């Protein structure tokens, strides 16, 4: 059910575009818009990499609130940056054994199903519904981050038998070998399904949901949880992005600008994140998430 309001909003923008395969509510491409998106991508990618999450959670609010674009167009652009980040990070971490490929491939069954469903649903939901959902998700994740501010990350040190899905990797800081076993697989699958669903609906990677669940309840050390999530979000985002692309909501020049920006920004941000303390990073993340939540809620109001 495409609402009256949304249909009315997208027609004039669509009329301003004359290029072939993309239509619908795609924002117009100007050199200024391209430059701003490139810069926003770099900031979102940098901030995301510093805080250990994807840049999508900052890029989508920026594109909807500051640029005034429909959330569908913003989510489509953001999902392509998620794919690029996932491929680059996974390729870079090959051989470090931090990515748990087998666990990732099991959870991908759930995450791809979730994002497929979300990608189709998103085409029928009204913009303000998605904006309110974005606000609710960022508020929840922010509150969860704040409540775990002083909790040490769970590192289940030395499991003698990692089982079929567990893993083992050498940790640089401690110099030791971390070995873990995956617990509560159904919970991990459920979290992956929800993460995939929200990923497609909102244009985020979904790591903000999966990583805390894997770390807090499923026995996966934070580093392995984050790396495995980074490996998975490529498939998650691809399932959603393909649907947005087919529905003509993805603007290739603006997506290109965002992808290039995010790649440049995240390569700088990874170094910044390594030097800051975990507690201050969590605090900064919670504050930014609350701000994003408030702005998205304000935007969703009629």
């Amino acid at each position, binding site marked *: 059910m495409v609402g009256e309001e949304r249909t009315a909003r997208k027609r004039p923008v669509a009329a301003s575009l004359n290029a072939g395969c993309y239509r619908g509510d795609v924002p117009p491409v100007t050199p200024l818009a391209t430059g701003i998106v490139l810069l926003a991508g770099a900031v979102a990618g940098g901030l995301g990499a510093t805080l250990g999450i994807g840049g999508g959670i900052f890029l989508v609010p920026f594109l909807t609130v500051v640029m005034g674009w429909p959330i569908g167009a913003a989510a489509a652009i953001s999902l392509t940056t998620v794919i690029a980040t996932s491929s680059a990070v996974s390729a870079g971490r090959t051989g470090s054994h931090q990515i748990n*490929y087998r666990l990732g491939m099991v959870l991908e069954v759930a995450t791809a199903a979730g994002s497929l469903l979300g990608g189709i649903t998103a085409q029928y939901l009204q913009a303000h519904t998605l904006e309110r959902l974005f606000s609710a998700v960022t508020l929840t994740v922010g509150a969860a981050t704040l409540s775990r501010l002083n909790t040490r990350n769970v590192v289940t040190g030395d499991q003698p038998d990692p*089982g*079929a899905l567990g893993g083992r*990797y050498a940790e640089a800081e401690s110099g030791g070998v971390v070995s873990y076993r995956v617990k509560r697989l159904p919970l991990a699958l459920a979290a992956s399904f929800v993460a995939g669903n929200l990923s497609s609906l909102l244009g985020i990677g979904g790591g903000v949901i999966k990583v805390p669940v894997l770390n807090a309840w499923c026995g996966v050390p934070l580093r392995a949880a984050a790396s495995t999530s980074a490996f998975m979000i490529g498939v998650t*985002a691809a399932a959603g*992005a393909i649907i947005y*692309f087919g*529905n*003509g909501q993805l603007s290739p020049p603006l997506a290109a600008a965002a992808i290039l920006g995010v790649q440049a920004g995240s390569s700088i941000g990874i170094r910044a994140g390594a030097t800051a303390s975990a507690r201050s990073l969590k605090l900064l993340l919670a504050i930014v998430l609350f701000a994003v939540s408030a702005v998205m809620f304000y935007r969703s109001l009629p």
Partner: protein
Amino acid sequence: MTPATPAPAGRPPVVDTRIEERLGLLLRFGVVVSTVCLAAGLLLYLYLGDGWFANSLLTTGLILLLATPVARVAMSVLEYARVRDWRFVVLTAIVLLELCAGIIAALVFHRRL
């Protein structure tokens, strides 16, 4: 199947070094080629305006970017079949089918508009 690191004690986890290396190479190839296409396409788009060549480069870059995770899953199916790990052949094949369903949904939306 080779163990990750010399294990201090107990059973080593299941690690498929060859599969991981091949998937890593594929992902790197995908992201590098698509980024080059997108960067060249964007520059042409900004300097020459909305033209056929710039649009083709941008669309090619985006399709390569979107196809990279799909290709990675397809390669996983083949690699697990090669080592006769049927459980993971089935799991990765389900993911591939889900991605194909996404492509079909995309084509349906594309026609509808």
